[in-house]
């Protein structure tokens, strides 16, 4: 971006503008573009979700506004904009006003490190993943503000639940990412994607694998377990069913959004759907190679890039289009899975939610971190690291041993933790029922 603008302004027009100004113009352009794209993603997602969930429930869904109802979100948006903005008398006006902004802003920040295609990343932070998850936690502050400022019991309950849930489920999310970071040895989102080239085996683990862009981390046992845990945590973080207890409509009206109306409510909605988009996108990036896919690496190899300045711009365009296609296809598929889960499972109780997060996901992700350590040790360590056993092995053998070992460890850990969790839950249910019987003085 900088290079293009620099070439355009300083070489073509010969204005001789300073570098910082060109950078500023570039970032403003990119930010504008993303701020335009994000709401459209949200609009599309609302339509997509309503249609998909309708199909799962043997219905048709919105199909009146435009062909197959494609303009339904526009109509909804118009409705949102024309609604009256009501602020309760007892509310803290300023906090009430600021809360939706505090919720939306971090979700917009998260776009900064999201790569859309090869070379298409607004900022390639070397701590991209950390930035992503650090920023996403900030919206919990906004939710708490909303719940507290509304001065409404349902809003406060919803906000409490939201914050408790987000704080609890950040831990398994970050722990599962920790395993990935250990395997790839980077926190940069771009190098994470670059590490996922190859064919079912990452090129960073085994050199010389043909680059078909399929070396996704999901194909390793560590990545698989990390993905499952991460996706469940992402559901909780995005307040999706079955973890939508912060806004459980049958229990606490609409949670922290109860006292919001009009476009402020719309902003919460926007934030939620953009967060869902981002969580799906980051899941696609971390575990499914982001824009990686058959053909992208080959096309990008012939394009203009820092390593290959003599490429042709047409390959830039083609690689970009194919990469964005792969990336969005994966993202939308994950969103479909989210809808699918919403269609299949009932909402969890608060105690079940906490139990599941703390007693099931966190132990599992901790074991996964251990597996990741085994993986790293077997595939890349040597005598210099004090692990001389694998020194003489070929890369394929190392990779095979690492795969089998981590598979066994992770599988066993999953079965054992799940069984323990199951029996603990069953025992707890029995206790609950006993207590209920005692309180009702029923015979056992």
């Amino acid at each position: 971006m900088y290079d293009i603008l620099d070439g355009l302004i300083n070489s073509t027009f010969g204005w001789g503008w300073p570098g910082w100004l060109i950078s500023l113009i570039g970032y403003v352009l990119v930010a504008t573009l993303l701020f335009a794209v994000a709401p459209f993603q949200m609009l599309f997602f609302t339509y997509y979700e309503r249609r998909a969930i309708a199909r799962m429930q043997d219905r048709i869904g919105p199909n009146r506004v435009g062909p197959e109802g494609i303009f339904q979100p526009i109509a909804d948006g118009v409705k949102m904009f024309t609604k009256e903005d009501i602020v309760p008398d007892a509310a803290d006006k300023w906090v009430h006003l600021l809360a939706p902004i505090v919720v939306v802003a971090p979700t917009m920040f998260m776009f900064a490190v999201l790569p859309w295609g090869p070379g298409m990343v607004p900022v390639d932070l070397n701590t991209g993943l950390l930035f992503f998850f650090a920023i996403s936690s900030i919206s919990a502050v906004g939710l708490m503000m909303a719940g507290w400022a509304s001065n409404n019991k349902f809003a406060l309950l919803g906000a409490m639940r939201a914050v408790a849930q987000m704080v609890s489920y950040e831990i398994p999310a970050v722990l599962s990412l920790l395993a990935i970071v250990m395997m790839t040895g980077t926190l940069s989102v771009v190098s994470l994607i670059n590490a996922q080239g190859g064919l079912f085996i990452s090129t960073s683990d085994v050199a010389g694998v043909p680059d078909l862009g399929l070396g996704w981390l999901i194909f390793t046992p560590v990545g698989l377990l990390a993905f499952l845990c991460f996706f469940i945590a992402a559901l909780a973080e995005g307040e999706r069913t079955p973890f939508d207890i912060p806004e459980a409509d049958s229990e606490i009206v609409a949670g922290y959004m109860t006292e919001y109306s009009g476009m402020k409510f719309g902003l919460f909605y926007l934030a939620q759907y953009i967060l869902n988009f981002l969580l799906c996108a980051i899941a696609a990036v971390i575990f499914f190679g982001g824009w990686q896919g058959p053909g992208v690496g080959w096309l990008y190899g012939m394009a203009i890039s820092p390593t290959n300045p003599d490429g042709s711009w047409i390959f830039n365009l083609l690689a970009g289009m194919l990469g964005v296609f792969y990336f969005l296809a994966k993202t939308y598929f994950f969103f479909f899975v989210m809808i699918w889960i919403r269609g299949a499972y009932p909402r969890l109780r608060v105690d079940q939610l906490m139990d599941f997060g703390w007693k099931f996901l966190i132990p599992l992700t901790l074991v996964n971190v251990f597996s990741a350590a085994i993986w790293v040790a077997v595939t890349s360590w040597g005598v210099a690291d004090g692990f001389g056993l694998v020194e003489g092995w070929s890369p394929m053998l190392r990779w095979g041993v690492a795969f089998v070992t981590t598979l066994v460890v992770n599988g066993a850990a999953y079965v054992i933790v799940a069984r323990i969790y199951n029996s603990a839950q069953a025992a707890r249910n029995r206790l609950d029922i006993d207590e209920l019987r005692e309180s009702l003085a029923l015979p056992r």
Partner: protein
Amino acid sequence: MTITIQRGEVVEVARGSQRRYAVPGMGLLDSLGVVWKHWRESFRQNRDFSDIHGTFTEQYPDERPNLPEAYRNMPILLYDDETGHELCTSCFQCQRICPPQVIHMTQAKDPTTGKAVPSVAEFIIEYDACMSCGFCAEVCPFDAIKMDHHFELSTADHASLTVYKQELNRPVSYYQSIAPTLWEEAKAGAYKKLQGNIKRRPDVIGIAPHLVDRIAARRAELAAAAAAAPPPPPPATTPAAPPAEARKLTPEEKAAKLAAIKAANASKQSGATPAETPPATAELSPAEAKAAKLAAIRAANTAKQAGTAPAAEATPAPVDEKAAKLAAIRAANAAKQAGTVPAAEATPAPVDEKAAKLAAIRAANAAKQAGTAPAAEVPPAEPAPVDEKAAKLAAIRAANAAKKAAAEDNETERN
């Protein structure tokens, strides 16, 4: 798994063995599989409910619902296509059974006789409170009220949900089109009853009011029939009277006739003048009957005054034909008591002004005869009065004559 449940029986349903999965969490995948199947199959239409999968949605404004015949929404009234006659006879069965009591009706009456006709004059259903139970259609013995399939009843105002006969009327062919087999079952009985009812409906009563040409045609038919028929038998009937038809006497007419006969009998018993039975066959309008009654009462009163013996019984203001009868009897009695001379026989309750006149004249004559000097002032005869005014006049004159006679009587007694 089929479960037959009988009353009072506790049934425990075996849910089947709970599947145990070797790997925990597989049950969750099963449920995802169920949802996936629903999603995949939802692109197929499933309108006959043959499967639990597939889209059931009926896109209503675009696709009209295929309603079953027995579907019921709001009641309507049927009329026959050919004759235009409504099937309803206003038997009030539907009004009686209607649980929210939203059916109201008025029975049609023959305008000339005031007689009830098996037809409905106005029929109102409050659709806003109707609960679509269909009891009215169930209970109707004439298959005149049926449940419609039309369900788009939204209106801009409340009042238009009160539906009158004009909007309730539907041809039989319409009902046949929405419920062919149901109508096939009801058809024979309904038409048979309708034929019977049409015979009892005079003039154009019973034809759906919006069928203007049907009504005109029927009117023309009736006029033609009237022209062909022999002229009405009693020439004395007033032009206002309807064409003479073979029909029963109304209770009022009957009562009048009876009273006249009784009065005549009484006078016969008293001996002197031969009693004439007043003509009773002619019809009279209610107003005329009233006037005649009035005349009779006055005659009676005067006759009482004429008598030496005080008339002990006060005649209360008569309000109906019964009272008129009573008055007539009393008049006769008073006349009888009036003395040795034949008293004024009051011929009360004459059935038309002619009869009233006659009665008055008779009363006057009797009174005159009662006196020693004949009262010459009373004009012996008048041109036939045509209305109640004349009858009243006659009665007043009779009364005057009677009074005079009584005065003379008193004088002679004093002498």
